[in-house]
């Protein structure tokens, strides 16, 4: 006995399925391109901001306009925050399906460089403005290598919320292999485990909880109000 095979329906179902699948993937690819463009735009803006701040700083230095320091410091803080948000977005973008690995690596690299530029600049501006600011470089890694990174992020965000512009945080994804500067930093400060915090040039490996971080910052600040 010959059994019936629904060839027509199988074929139609196959075509419908593949069409929906391909549409889904194509839309994903299109969005991926849009994201890269968006990331580029944001990066250019940040570079411009940094240029402007550097000039402002040079001007303050030259004309001895120390009374402008407060404004400069607020601007630095705001830009570092903004940069952090862009970093998060690039992270979100790259965790999505995309076929543009290179483009994302380039974006990530630009982000890391931008962060480092801001970090160096923030350090330099300290010299003249003498503001009571602590800066932390937070070295993290992907979850497989770093169980406590999520908790460390939470602690840092928590303190940042409280200390506002008195604390600058720069986070560096050490699992990102595209930028040699990261390797250099790791070597220079002897970073081997994650999370690691570099607090005003002093390294603290392992998870630093809220209490410990507070007491570390306590030693740095001259005005200890609201910290310890």
């Amino acid at each position: 006995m010959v059994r019936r095979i629904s060839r027509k329906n199988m074929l139609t179902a196959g075509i419908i399925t593949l069409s929906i699948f391909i549409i889904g993937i194509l839309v994903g690819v299109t969005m991926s391109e849009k994201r890269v463009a968006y990331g580029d735009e944001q990066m250019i803006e940040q570079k411009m901001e940094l240029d402007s701040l550097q000039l402002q700083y040079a001007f303050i230095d030259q004309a001895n306009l120390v009374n402008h320091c407060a404004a400069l410091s607020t601007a630095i803080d705001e830009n570092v925050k903004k940069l952090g948000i862009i970093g998060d977005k690039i992270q979100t973008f790259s965790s999505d399906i995309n076929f543009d690995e290179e483009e994302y690596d380039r974006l990530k690299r630009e982000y890391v460089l931008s962060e480092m530029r801001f970090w160096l600049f923030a350090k330099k501006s300290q010299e003249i403005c003498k503001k009571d600011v602590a800066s932390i470089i937070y070295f993290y890694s992907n979850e497989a290598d770093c169980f406590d990174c999520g908790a460390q992020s939470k602690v840092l965000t928590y303190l940042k919320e409280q200390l506002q512009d008195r604390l600058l945080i720069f986070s560096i994804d050490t699992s990102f292999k595209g930028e040699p500067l990261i390797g250099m930093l790791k070597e220079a400060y002897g970073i081997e485990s994650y999370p690691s915090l570099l607090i005003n040039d002093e390294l603290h490996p392992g998870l630093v909880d809220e209490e410990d971080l507070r007491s570390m910052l306590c030693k740095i600040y001259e005005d200890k109000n609201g910290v310890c």
Partner: protein
Amino acid sequence: MYVTITSILIWLIYIISLFFLTFWLLTFLEKGLEDEELKITSFPKVTITVPAYNEEKGLAETIYSILELDYPKEKIEVIIVNDCSKDKTKEIAIQLKQDNPNRDIKIINHKINQGKGKGMNNALKIAKGEFFVCLDADSVIQNNALKKMIPVFENKRVSAVLPLMKVKNPYGLMGKLQWCEYLINLFYKGIMGKIDCVHVAPGPFSVYRKKVLDEIGGFDENNLTEDLEITFRLQKSHYKIVQLLNTSVYTRVPLTWKAFYKQRNRWYKGTMINMFGYKDMIMNKKYGDFGLLQMPKIFISGFIAVFVFFLIVYHLLRPFFKFIYNTSFVNFNFDIFLATMTNKILNFSLLELNYTNIIFGVTSIALALTVLKLSFRYTKERYSNQGWISVPAYLILYGVIASGIWLGVFIDLIFRRVQKW
């Protein structure tokens, strides 16, 4: 993440599920689901077997639903198989026989517990009917059943006819989940029946042509799911199995998690074991759509379920516990959570959404809701019949529970833990 093995697997599962859903909906559009209303012209003798093991609670109701069938009384033979029950099943069976002296009720008593397959075969040996029915003692049949079912056998290739199976006790969360599950499954089986792809003729009131049962050698006596096995065998002999939606049998479902797990573990494990027994039918053109579509689908569904289980754990439960762990370091401060959320929302851009997943998700949900709507229409039920909670509860919980059970089944199979019936 880029393109990882996990994402490729997810896509594959998506493609496979979407393909089957589309295929069944196309079949539904082509064939429709309205049962032909056949007029009954003759009343052949029907043997109804009630296998009973410790069924003192449900037996009487089951037997009376048989005795009240709208069918000539002298054309119905009832055989109660008491499989060495430890409760009062035997006494109740005898009482039922005494109370209905003008009805043809026979009782087979097993001296030792021999299982359902053996019991059915013993009944088959003495059955005088042209048609042989099994009705589990936890089920009740609608009185128009035989009138709707017997005429279908006019087609000589038809070997079995199945009624719509509904839940008799849709109480509590468990009952409501299964109530919903049965409606969807039966709608789906209705479509499968249209292209000869029914893979199981379940215990509650499947009517078989007795001649065919004799020919293929009765039920398998050492099988976890003998109803599935005999259906595979009927399919192998190219017999037709018809699923009706115009008459119902009401069956009692397990209401505790433990009993439910036990039942499903047996079903799924039986399915897997029988699948291996009939593996030559998988992807075999000789068996038409059943071989090319249904067998592979049943075979992979277990594996997909286990994969989905791990996906759920990995993508939902793990981040949830991680979140709790992480927030414990800031003393579960709510303000920071709020601040982070506000920040995210304020800086949200449409670019952040994962459009590929959204398209896949929306198509899946749309198709699933279509199936849900059609299921309720063709089984003549309303969403609200068992309270508004049942449908959402089914949609959210059922997949998780089924995947968990499949995981248990695979673990059992790996360690060769196979229960007796």
